[in-house]
């Protein structure tokens, strides 16, 4: 499955309630105002639903940068292009 940066960005915008949020490869929780553990989980949940994938708990824990996320999505067959 092919996806774009915008597809992922939509999910971020919904979860973090930030309509102009733009994601970039090195983005981490420190770059987003309310990216706490609870919102991290909402993000995972929303991404799983949006791309019809299931992350492992190791992947959930290892997802620090947006880049990591793209790489993990790739492992589940979702190729995201920047």
């Amino acid at each position, binding site marked *: 499955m092919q996806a774009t940066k915008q597809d992922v960005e939509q999910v971020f915008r*919904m979860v973090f309630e930030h309509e102009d949020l733009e994601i970039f490869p090195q983005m981490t929780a420190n770059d987003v105002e309310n990216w706490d553990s*609870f919102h991290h*989980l909402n993000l995972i*949940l929303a991404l799983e639903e949006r791309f019809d994938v299931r992350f492992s*708990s190791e992947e*959930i824990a290892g997802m620090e940068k947006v880049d990591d996320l793209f790489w993990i999505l790739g492992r589940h067959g979702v190729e995201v292009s920047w």
Partner: protein
Amino acid sequence: MSSSVAANPLAQARKTVAEDPGAAYELILQNSDAWLSVSSFLSAVQLLQRIPSETREQRAKIEVKVALLGNCTLSYTADALSLALGPTIFPKIYTGDFDQWAMDLIDTASGLANFAPDVVVVHLSSLGFTKGGTDLAAVPIKQIEDAFRSFADRSNAPVITILPEPLRECTGGSSQTDCWYNETREAIRRASKHALGNRAITLDAVPTLLAMNSDWAAARYWNSAKIPLHPKACIALGRRLARVIENVTYPRIKVIAVDCDNTLWGGIVGEDGSKGLRLSPFDESAGYLNLQRLLKEAAANGFLLVALSKNDEENVREVFDQRPEMILKLEDFSLLKINWGPKSQNLLAAANELNLALDSFLLIDDSPFERGEVAAALPDVVIAELPPDPDEYATAITRLGLLERPLLSDEDTRRTELYRQEQARQTAREAVISPEEFLRDLQLEVLATPVGAENLDRVAQLVAKTNQFNLTTRRHSRDKLGAWASDPNVYAYCYRVSDRFGDAGITGVCVALPKSDRVFELDTLLLSCRVIGRTVEHAIMEHLRQWLADRKPEELRGEYLPTPKNGLVADLLPRFGFTLISNVGDRKQYSLDDFQRPIANAFAKIVEDPLTD
């Protein structure tokens, strides 16, 4: 729900929340089915945080303090609960710290004690007891019971325990795992009963989980965040929990108004007779009996039953007398509203007689037409969407979660009563729209078709079987009807009736015979009970009048021949302008001689079948 609403109601709510939070809140509440998708649920929760407390408080009937405790993360359940309680309860929610539930219950200075809850929910998850499934040590039942007992000593709040979830599906396992699961659940159920008595309520999550296929078990969420079920399952559980909390604090439903024909039994008593009704637990009519059993239990738990049926009352009574298979007995009903009037009017009367508000009524009726009529006239009445298949009646009603009233002691019931009385009683108000307005919006169409080869079977069947709306009950043979059909001097028509609820098919027959050059006789006028109460007969008579007007007769004679079942049409002809000319015994003969004046037909559009011209 309605397709006329904007494609995404939550997006709509987001736009309007700042200037009109009340309207935005309404959009959120009315689209509760959307919460089953994660993104919609998260949006709804975000929006809920932007709705002012006053708005939520005004929308609800009462405020209830709910404490959520457990050996797992409760955030999704809590959010779903807040949303799902909205229409009834403005909740104040206390969420205990992770796995501190026992201390909270025991400690007289705990956060829980200070909160002084009205209701406590304790979610005891299998994963929480077993270190994520890795250790099947025996659960400390004694301590659990002590914790409940200690809380019961100083609070009257009911305690809803969410029982442990099946473990094998979450983490794998063997019969040993199943054994642990079964014993633990049963022990917790017993401990809660011992300690809390009638205030103990146990909630089995399994029915909710079964409805979610295999996705409910999601160990990754436990391992990442101590969430015991897939968050979607927590959301579904929160919704169900909301109904349980409503039922113990402010029971929405007090009265169940139930239709009879094709709802409590298979068939139509006025047509099939009480002996002809389908009521067997051993065949496809078992669904009706299952609904009866469900209602019997509800009646035993304090719900009031009202029979709401368009029928002659004696026919319905006969079913209760003559059919021993009936699980419900007449004594189970508080009121019988069995007549030919609109159901909305009968519900209104029942609400006044019982002195209960209309929003405490649940309507169970197989007919989309009747449900629509009540919904339009009395929007406060809760209406069950009954599936077309009777096999699914009882499960559909169960799934509403409105009849799950836990057995409470007298004291607790009185407490519930107090809640009710605190509220100003909203007495049954006038119908929002009248039955006439409802009929006007019905888009009723009557397609008049001459009786002929393509409909003769159906016409013969109607003539042979129709009992209730049948002026003369003359059982003509198929051959006789066929002969009339080919005689251009005979008016022999059938009628296909449709409205915005659907097409009822050919459901009416009328035959007028020439008796001489100048006189016609109304031989047959009948309607299937499926379309009674919609003024179809006015359209039929108007169609006949137009047909006769072209032929310029002197009079149309008609008579009413009474039978035990057709009392409904005893006074029909005078309503069309017929005058009584003779009244011998119980035979009443009438005559109509003015064919220029139209018959009042305010609601139906008459369409002549194009095939005939």
